[in-house]
């Protein structure tokens, strides 16, 4: 399945797996953003002739620290250790890592089918629209219908960018993930009204099965 760029809705033409400090991350970039980040492209004219390579500049970048969830502070290492996630926002903070774990645990299923709370109806509808637009955009690009693709890209930007529901797993970078967090967990207004978890709150002593 064709992936979209981590930074925009365009199709990704550079695909890299980066391992730093024991953390594996995938990078998917369109031609424009790949050049911006220092990848060498044999041609900048499109997706057909791509051989990406990280430059020394990228390698020399500051080593990434294990990041905690923006809301509860839990790290992915702690999730792996306990098998439990700390809060709803963790699913957005660690969407990529958890997505793979969830798929394994759920016999290959990647997306929810079924009931949803009434307050999430708009979210579900919007996710479905984003998925449809992203799918149409990929089809338009593959058919070289560039004018239509541009219109679809603009429309996708209007409705909130990346797809999250039923097609390509999201490949957001950590910065885009945090900027879309509040969009993708239902009822965030309610959460905003609540005090966030205090740093260092202790996990419950029980380990429910």
């Amino acid at each position: 399945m064709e992936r979209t760029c981590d930074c925009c809705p365009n199709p990704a033409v550079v695909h890299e797996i980066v391992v730093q400090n024991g953390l594996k991350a995938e990078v998917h970039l369109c031609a424009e953003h790949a050049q911006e980040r220092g990848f060498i492209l044999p041609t900048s004219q499109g997706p057909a002739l791509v051989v990406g390579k990280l430059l020394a500049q990228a390698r020399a970048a500051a080593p990434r620290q294990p990041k905690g969830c923006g809301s509860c502070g839990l790290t992915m290492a702690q999730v792996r250790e306990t098998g439990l996630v700390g809060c709803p926002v963790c699913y957005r903070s660690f969407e990529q890592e958890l997505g793979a774990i969830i798929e394994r645990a759920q016999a290959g299923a990647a997306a929810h089918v079924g009931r949803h709370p009434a307050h999430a109806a708009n979210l579900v509808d919007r996710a479905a629209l984003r998925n449809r637009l992203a799918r149409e955009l990929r089809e338009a690009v593959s058919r070289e219908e560039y004018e239509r693709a541009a219109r679809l890209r603009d429309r996708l930007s209007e409705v909130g960018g990346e797809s999250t529901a039923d097609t390509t797993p999201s490949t957001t970078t950590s910065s885009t993930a945090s900027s879309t967090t509040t969009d993708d967990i239902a009822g965030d207004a309610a959460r905003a009204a609540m005090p966030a978890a205090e740093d260092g709150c202790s996990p419950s002593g029980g380990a429910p099965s």
Partner: protein
Amino acid sequence: MGAATRSPLIGVDPADHREAPMADCVLSSRVRLARNLIGFNFVNRSSPEQLAEVVHRVQAARLGGPYEAGTRWVNVQATAALDRLMLFERNLISRPFVEAPHPRCVAISADETTSVMVNEEDHLRLQMLAPGMQLAPLAERMFELDRSLERSLEFAFHPRFGYLTACPTNLGTGIRVSAMMHLPALRMLEELDKVQRAAKDMHLAVRGFHGEGTEALGDFFQVSNQTTLGRSEHDLVEEFAGVIVPRFVEYERAARRTLMARDLSSLDDRVHRALGILRNCRLLALDESIKFLSRVRLGVALGRISDIERPLVDRLLLEVQPAHLARISGGELGQGRDDRAARADAVRGAFRCL
């Protein structure tokens, strides 16, 4: 604590005493939903103060419809150990909920068919129980309760991952449907691996008498869905009610027919010998009580034992367990006289053969 005869685990509708569907092979059906509140960390990442606030919010929510009248809220943290264990033995709370150290409570409907655990692994664990095979009507009632709670509470939901839970193995629909199967003939014919294979092929979990992490006792097995993502609740319940449970029931009934056709005297001997022990023993351990009650239950289902009714056997399956036994015999857990003697007395008394 209500009388044991009111529990849905006993398998008879208290209103009209009709036998529950497939009760010969299915002890009980259960549907549970996992839900978490927006605005709070999950239970494993919350402070006691935050968990107390979750309890407060859920108690303030309306359960709606039939659950308003007669529902009791039990503050589990302030409940005596014996009563907590009784709730567990009646399948109203889970094993971890018995001992957890943090603020938690459970709402229990008057007929003990519905319970809402607050601050188990997830903020809410809604559970409904019914005797025999009744998954489809149970699920409908569960969705009504879910909708009702949704009017007062906002549940965490993600468009890709569905309802969010502390453990990723529960997210999506958050639904777990299960049937407690009684499969003595399959065990006697050593064909239980057929059940295990079929369960594995269908991504089902097969667990013991009290669910996750417990051993099968006396031919009782809980069959439940293992995955919660990617299939709608409706499809899952339909498959369980229409295909999976009936298939296991048919395996068991075929095994029972085989046993009767092959050697009726031997089958009669096994079920009546079990009944004889229960009627005459003076010391009875828990595992052997379940084993012999299971055989008597088989004898009753096949019409080989005619002077005992199945609901009595199902009631005894509850009452031989440690907390029930302690309550019935007026003692405390693990104190006083030998549990095995108290259990033997209770069973003999129930069969009126003192």
